[in-house]
């Protein structure tokens, strides 16, 4: 498969009201790969992700999707290409899971259109199935657990049928089983050609599902900057991580499988 660039960040600075939180980010993400964004609290992972989703305008630099500039794209067209899932999602309405997932079709529909057509229904159905929400589809989202709501939010973004999926801490509210099935879902989406960019705190998850990791380093009194980027196997070294998180940690290789390793912070 030729290596096509799905997403390219060109000398990007992200932040609020002209004040950069992260700067000098230049990286490209190939189609059908997963990029993880790592870094300490407050390093600007979410800010960077929101800028890629065009929820906040970039302070400097450019973002390209499939070669075209993100900032000039009409919003509905953008939302057909990029889906963004926030850390926590709720509605002031009494929506059911299915009704919320159906809103993912919004960028594909006319702005006044309520009725789901055949294509919409198929996408909604598939999204609900992929996130294992079949039993919960008629439940009100206010009544389900945080983890279930997070899955519903991911289902909504899948119903968008985007080329690029942006996830902000998708495992945050999930129990062990659903963390695993989410990571499996990411791998499956990747194999189907989806490009995923996700902030993840858990370095072990990054090591297992990401093709490349971008680590942001928090600088005192100055915007964060990229510390390292590359395949997890190469860049997740004890030295790099100690520098990124400013704390001692250990990396333990799995003796039965030379590819996999686990990262611990020994107390």
């Amino acid at each position, binding site marked *: 498969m030729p290596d096509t660039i799905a997403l390219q960040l060109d000398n990007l600075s992200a932040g609020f*009201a002209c004040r950069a939180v992260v700067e000098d980010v230049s990286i490209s993400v190939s189609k059908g790969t997963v990029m993880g964004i790592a870094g300490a609290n407050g390093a600007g992972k979410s800010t960077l992700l*929101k800028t890629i*989703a*065009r*929820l*906040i305008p970039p302070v400097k630099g450019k973002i390209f999707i499939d070669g075209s500039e993100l900032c000039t794209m009409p*919003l*509905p*067209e*953008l*939302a*057909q290409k*990029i*889906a*963004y899932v*926030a850390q926590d*999602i*709720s*509605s*002031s*309405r*009494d*929506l*059911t899971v299915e*009704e*919320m997932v159906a*809103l*993912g079709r*919004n*960028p594909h*529909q006319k*702005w*006044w*259109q*309520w009725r789901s057509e055949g294509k919409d229904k198929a996408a909604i159905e598939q999204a609900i199935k992929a996130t294992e929400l079949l039993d919960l589809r008629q439940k009100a989202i*206010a009544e389900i657990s945080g983890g279930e709501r997070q899955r519903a*939010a991911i289902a909504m*973004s899948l119903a*968008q049928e985007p080329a690029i999926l942006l996830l902000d801490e998708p495992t945050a509210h999930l129990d062990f089983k659903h963390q695993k099935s989410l990571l499996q879902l990411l791998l499956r989406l990747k194999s189907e050609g989806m490009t995923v960019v996700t902030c993840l705190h858990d370095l072990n998850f990054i090591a297992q599902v990401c093709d490349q990791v971008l680590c942001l380093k928090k600088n005192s009194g100055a915007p964060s900057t990229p510390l390292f980027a590359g395949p997890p196997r190469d860049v997740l070294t004890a030295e790099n991580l100690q520098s990124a998180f400013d704390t001692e940690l250990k990396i333990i290789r799995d003796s039965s499988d030379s590819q996999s390793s686990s990262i611990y912070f020994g107390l």
Partner: protein
Amino acid sequence: MINTITRAVRRDNVEFNGVGQILKGAMTSAADSRTNITLRLAILAGVLLAGFLTSVCIGDVFIEPIKALTLLTGGSTNSATAPGIADILTQIRLPRTLIATTVGAALAVSGYILQALSRNPLADPYLTGVSSGAGLAVAIAIIIGVDFNLMPVSAFAGGLLAALLVAQMARRAGGLSVTRLILAGVAISAVCGSLITLLITQSGSASQSQGIIFWLAGGIAGRGWNDLTTLLIYTVGGIIATLFLSKQIRVLSLGDETAQALGVDVSRLQWLLLAAAVLMCGAAVAASGLVAFVGLIAPNLARLLFVRDERVEIVASALIGAVLVMLSDMAARTLGQGQELPLGTLLSLAGGPFFLYLISTSKGQEV
């Protein structure tokens, strides 16, 4: 008051659902099934029609319903008094009842929009400053002796001016700050309210002060077909626009960021909704003075009875608001001994306890 403001400023969805839960608990049996929505809408429309007919029939002169219907449908009656009665019916009661109905619908949908926009069930169309601006404009107009026929125009202009000021305060990069909208609305209302009080106490003329006070209490006495036309244009336009935007209102309920990620131009949507709310409320205030409460209670009742579908809720809000104001106006002009009761005051007087009743019957419900 402070409490109300603090609660209104809170934007968390928990509270929004909380009040919904209270109301739902109060009328669980009515709200549970979603199957008979059409029936409920039909009942509501039936109540509106029946109330409408009653309203045009009763008053100082009673007109028999059959006769009224015949006259309204263009037929003629044989009675000798028919010409006088026909005038009362078509020149006084009909326009007045239509104005009451339209004012109710306009305020209710305006309230619905504001509540959706702020994600807060306590929001009310007057939060936009429309009422206070209109009140101040009318007070000034009365003091400087503007012709009475120009009162609605002054009210509309004053209301829009205040709303623009509030909107300007609420503007921020990428749209509207709802918290600032509410805070600015409260602040500007307070300033205008004080100015009105100053004008009332310092005017030096009892008739002027009384004129202002009476206008502030709300009422539709003396309004005719001319007032109705303008009001109807804004209201019908506003309701149709809101219905078209209803899907986007639902997307917006997920929060500004998620809505934008779903392709919604949040800033443009907020401005459109605010404009619709302000124009409808402004037109209503111009026609009827300050009719409080209906903008708050009608959307809450509609959400309670017609959960989950914004389009139905909007239509139901309009119908409920129309019924409330029409019935209050009927009471305002028939219950008073010789003098009309103030419509807005009457509505709050009857609506307030009803709202409290709904809340109190759901004690023990999870809030």
